[in-house]
């Protein structure tokens, strides 16, 4: 088979809003020649049973992601800030509604 025909349709990541009031959530990916077709394919592959009311597709190559190696610099600092959580504060039992 000639090499040009082997060219693959680009990959798009698919996000679905399950119902009104919820965020779009990543569900998987589809290949498509362009964004419009990616939407069609996402509809066929990921919403055959009323799983969604809205779809986003994003070219996978355009996603900027943190690296697992950055886990500590990015997320460790929040680990020792217990005072950001309500349970850090002791309130007597006789104080209502708090």
């Amino acid at each position: 088979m000639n090499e040009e025909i082997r060219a693959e349709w680009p990959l798009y990541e698919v996000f679905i809003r399950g119902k009104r009031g919820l965020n779009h959530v990543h569900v998987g990916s589809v290949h498509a020649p362009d964004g419009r077709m990616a939407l069609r394919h996402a509809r066929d592959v990921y919403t055959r049973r009323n799983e969604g009311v809205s779809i986003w597709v994003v070219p996978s190559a355009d996603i900027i992601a943190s690296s697992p190696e950055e886990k500590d610099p990015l997320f460790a600092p929040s680990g020792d800030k217990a005072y950001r959580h309500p349970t850090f504060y002791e309130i007597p039992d006789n104080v209502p509604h708090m």
Partner: protein
Amino acid sequence: MSSAVAEPQLEAEFEAIVGHKDRIEPRDWMPEAYRKTLIRQVAQHAHSEIIGMQPEGNWIGRAPSLRRKAILLAKVQDEAGHGLYLYSAAETLGISRNELTELLISGKQKYSSIFNYPTLSYTDVGTIGWLVDGAAICNQVPLCRTSFGPYGRAMIRICKEESFHQRQGFELLMTMMRGTEEQRAMVQESVNRFWWPALMMFGPPDDSSPNTAQSMAWGIKTHTNDELRQKFVDMSVPQAEALGVTFPDPELRWNEERGHYDFGQPDWDEFWSVVKGDGPCNAQRLAHRKRAWDDGAWVREAALAFAEKETQAGKEAQAAEEAQR
């Protein structure tokens, strides 16, 4: 970011995550053998869904009623969807969709041996739903907790849809069992043909399944082939009784002591010969998939050319607009 972290440390982190039954995600470091094993397993699973469309798709044009046709169409469409969920998961491991398709067509990657058996009448649609999808459910439910995140998430999606497959099959067979003597005989004949191949779907016995121990240590598999096969037999016997059919196994009987059914062994020589390509339909299944792939080449190419043209036209229109300002 530098990747200066030493391999032993990365491996220790990986083992710790897997040991805690936590999930590995695509960008995490993973041993090359883990990646390879997963690509092999997820790809084989995806190929099975795609090839699995053929035995039943064969009957869409000959459905006995509009109701059955709508059901079968939806089912076969689901199999396509399941294949695509799984290809999507496999691609997060760094292999492309084209590579996967070519590995299937060239016979370098396998698919489940069950799909190399023919479907001889519409009854087989019912039997496949009941026994083949039933066996698939037994295999797939534990995989929802597999250690590789995208694979587990695809399995959750698939399991939600698989129950419809099994129930429509059982209902089809029940309908036939309420019919004529001839129809009941058709059901029994179909069940006789599919019982042993369905048991083979769980793979070779544990003592000749070399990959199982490592896959379990990595949390890819959580049960052995024989455990799952036993579970399937235990589930299926009361269903067969309710349906009014028997399984073609003289050794099948309840074992009070074990609390499980005893059963005979499938013909493992037949299993290996089908895996190696000598089943009744291997050549036909692959030839059909290859034809669909080759015949679709111009569509893939034309859609890409059209998309490029649209993008180009969009850019030119934008440039013209900017020039006018």
